[in-house]
């Protein structure tokens, strides 16, 4: 392994898409109805997918938590869905991609996107502050891209040693 400061570049440069697993694909796209059930549905799907890919259990907990926060943000701050609304018309897209580096280390990338507009920070924004803190703490990299037409959150997992 190169020294830590070089690892990021190493991975980015040499990462290639993973070949399909025998039982579960390396890619998964899910469209979620942007209601308050969306985070729990996302948690179930992400956990099942990571288990199928034999991800380490402690890492599964971290990533399930991070993805749940991203989806929760879209529902609460992107679309401002009132509490206990389960089936609004808006959707949140969740994209999952597995990559394997040449050295066999695996990473998963989650892209959570909405077409809402996150509120500017205010005194009631502390829930989102916690969400951001959780997403950052549970991932290798967090990218948030906000535009007037929607917000995209990219969560990249810590690299997992070869199986």
């Amino acid at each position, binding site marked *: 392994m190169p020294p830590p400061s070089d690892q990021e570049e190493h991975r980015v440069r040499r990462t290639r898409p993973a070949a399909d697993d025998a039982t579960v694909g390396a890619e998964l796209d899910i469209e979620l109805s942007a209601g*308050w059930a969306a985070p729990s549905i996302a948690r179930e799907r992400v956990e099942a997918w990571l288990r199928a890919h034999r991800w380490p259990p402690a890492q599964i907990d*971290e990533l*399930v938590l991070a993805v749940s926060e991203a989806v*929760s943000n879209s529902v609460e701050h992107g679309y401002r869905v009132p509490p206990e609304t389960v089936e609004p018309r808006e959707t949140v897209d969740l994209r999952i991609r597995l990559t394997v580096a040449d050295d066999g280390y695996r990473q998963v990338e989650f892209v959570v996107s909405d077409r809402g507009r996150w509120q500017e920070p205010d005194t009631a924004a*502390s829930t989102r502050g*916690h969400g951001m*803190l959780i997403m950052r703490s*549970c991932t290798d990299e967090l990218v948030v891209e906000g535009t007037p037409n929607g917000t995209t959150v990219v969560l990249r997992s810590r690299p997992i040693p070869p199986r």
Partner: protein
Amino acid sequence: MTVRSVDRDASVLLVVEGAVDGLTAPRLRTAVADAFDRLDGRALVLDLSSVTFLGSPGLRTLFDSASEAVGHRGHRPLRVVVDHSRPVIRPIEIVGLDNVLALYHDVDEALRGDEPTV
């Protein structure tokens, strides 16, 4: 998520089970507010040892409940029971709630108001 409320002479115990997220946190908030209203000097203990998931809306509820316990009701720090399972203790530690709550691993210790054990 379910919340079971156990009233005793010296305490009100809220036993929470399942996932506390944006869908369910409002119900936890209501349950805690109801408990505060009838405490009448008794201790309030939240047992989260059977919680399977705790997200930021649940953390917000715990923060607000802790603030209310100390700031408005004159109580000591809110007593919360957690087990060693990461889905609960990990988010609590990430956002620093462990500095605000009195955390226990054991319901009886929490009910007695022993020194926090976590």
